[in-house]
């Protein structure tokens, strides 16, 4: 009976923590996924100050603020408890997300709009910085030592499932606003983008209700009753040499490599498929949704496995596989989507032109669409836009050309398979890491100590991956895959440090 009650309780603990963390990730990702639409609404490029705020919103929230959130809420979690702290982060995240959905655009309220959105985005980053450490600690402190990896791996699924949920809700909203797909997308860009933000309030309300019913972590409650709670978690975490060296080891030997693998497989790969391979928006998203769906159970598999063989070698094996295979896998993505290798069915080729008068002038906008079809079922749409000027001698120097490909069913599943493999690497490095981090630090400063390396590894090393990789591809434009060197080098250093210095021993007693 006791065992049944225990199992029921831990299931409740896992569910309450995971649902809230999943929603926080969802809230955080929808801003990133809708960055272009949001930029048009709040940060017009014609205004340099608004553009500056846009850049700050992109960079500051994801990268700089997350570690600060880890410090602020980690300290709070070690002082007042895990339950109320990660309840607070959920309220801040949910409130900010809902508020973003309500802010009037730049056209309505001018500069106030980008400033409000920037502040709300910073709050989102801050809340996310505090959430994960709390949820992982809370679940781990309820778990028996022989199932710590298994139970905390449920928390590890939430970041990927949050991405899945955000992709799904955005995709559905884009297509249900009108029967005509073009009109539906236009409505989405106009006002429909607010729906995923507003929808969040229902998810957050449910999660707050569930979390309110939960009790404090037993280990923290005991510490509190014994009067052993840390008086200054920040000082104890980072000014005591013996703990600081473990924080540094966690960052350079685990989270740094885990962060770059996570963001390369799930974000840079998406940017790469869409921007470099020119795959269609919807097809890119559904490929990722399938791959995530198939790969997510492996978080649990590797989390559970880590309880038997230890955390270290599983995480490092994931890094090693990523380092060795990323370039061949990305090269395959290029090759599959490259239409130069395909045979065109020239009889099916369609060329259409349309003309629009440019507002407040006599010039005309010419939109030329060419549809190419290939024998393997791939289709390619090339849309070039240029302006026909009435003034003599004035011509468009270089028409703007946009390309979008839809691959055949066979290639669609082939790409899904490649992304699936990449996400498997994520499940290997990320599945056991919560248990690993929890076991590294003592209860009284656990929340603070584990949150900072996690958010530097994921927020800074990981979060910057798509930007640095894209930047590298711009600087060294001869090699499409050059961006991967950032991931390979960072993960390589992390692998060496992890292999040399990390212990594979599972800490049986984390109550001290």
């Amino acid at each position, binding site marked *: 009976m006791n065992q049944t009650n225990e199992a029921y309780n831990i299931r409740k603990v896992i569910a309450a923590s995971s649902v809230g963390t999943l929603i926080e990730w969802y809230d955080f990702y929808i801003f990133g996924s809708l960055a272009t639409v949001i930029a048009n609404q709040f940060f017009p490029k014609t205004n340099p100050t608004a553009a500056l705020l846009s850049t700050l919103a992109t960079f500051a929230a994801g990268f700089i603020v997350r570690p600060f959130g880890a410090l602020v809420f980690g300290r709070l979690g070690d002082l007042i408890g895990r339950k109320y702290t990660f309840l607070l982060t959920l309220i801040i995240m949910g409130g900010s997300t809902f508020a973003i959905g309500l802010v009037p655009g730049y056209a309505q309220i001018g500069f106030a709009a980008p400033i409000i959105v920037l502040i709300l985005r910073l709050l989102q980053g801050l809340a996310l910085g505090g959430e994960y450490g709390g949820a992982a600690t809370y679940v781990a402190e309820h778990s028996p030592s022989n199932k710590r990896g298994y139970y905390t791996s449920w928390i590890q699924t939430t970041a990927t499932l949050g991405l899945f949920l955000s992709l799904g809700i955005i995709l559905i909203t884009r297509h249900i606003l009108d029967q005509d797909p073009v009109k539906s997308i236009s409505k989405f860009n106009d006002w429909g983008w607010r729906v995923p933000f507003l929808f969040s309030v229902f998810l957050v309300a449910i999660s707050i209700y569930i979390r309110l019913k939960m009790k404090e972590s037993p280990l923290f409650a005991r510490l509190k009753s014994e009067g052993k709670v840390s008086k200054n978690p920040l000082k104890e975490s980072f000014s005591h040499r013996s703990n600081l*060296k473990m924080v540094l080891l966690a960052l*350079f030997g685990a989270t740094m490599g885990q962060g770059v693998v996570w963001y390369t497989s799930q974000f840079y790969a998406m940017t790469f498929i869409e921007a470099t391979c020119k795959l269609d928006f919807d097809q890119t998203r559904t490929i990722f949704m399938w791959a995530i769906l198939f790969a997510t159970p492996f978080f649990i598999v590797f989390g559970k496995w880590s309880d038997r063989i230890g955390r270290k070698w599983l995480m490092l094996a994931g890094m090693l596989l990523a380092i060795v295979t990323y370039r061949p896998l990305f090269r395959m993505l290029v090759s599959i989507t490259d239409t130069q290798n395909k045979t065109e069915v020239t009889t099916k080729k369609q060329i259409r032109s349309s003309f629009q008068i440019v507002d407040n002038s006599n010039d005309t906008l010419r939109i030329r669409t060419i549809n190419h079809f290939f024998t393997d079922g791939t289709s390619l749409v090339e849309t070039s836009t240029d302006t026909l000027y009435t003034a003599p001698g004035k011509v468009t120097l270089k028409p703007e050309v946009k390309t979008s490909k839809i691959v055949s069913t066979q290639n669609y599943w082939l790409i899904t398979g490649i992304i699936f493999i990449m996400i498997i690497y994520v499940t290997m490095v990320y599945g056991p890491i919560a248990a690993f981090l929890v076991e590294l630090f003592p209860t*009284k400063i656990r929340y603070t100590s584990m949150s900072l390396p996690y958010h530097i590894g994921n927020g800074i090393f990981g979060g910057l991956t798509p930007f640095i990789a894209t930047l590298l591809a711009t600087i060294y434009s001869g090699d499409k895959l050059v961006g991967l060197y950032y991931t390979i080098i960072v993960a390589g250093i992390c692998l060496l440090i992890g292999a*040399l210095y990390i212990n594979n021993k599972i800490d049986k007693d984390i109550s001290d």
Partner: protein
Amino acid sequence: MDNIKRIAGIIWILLGPLSVYYLVKTAVIEISKKPVLDTKIQWTVFVVVFIPIAIGMVLFGYYALKGEYKHLPESSAEIID
């Protein structure tokens, strides 16, 4: 193994300043190539964010060189001194 851990500490110590040098050099080149606000902000963020991390790497290397990772703590009593 302990000797390798200690000697590798020198590599981690050197890696800190080397990565900052490469980062600052690339930032200067890229900003001078395209001196617009976006480029300046991007590179300033990269440099500002990565400098403390590079210092952390030097500190990690120093601890490794001193043999601090020869034995990892097995209980909290060893961590909170």
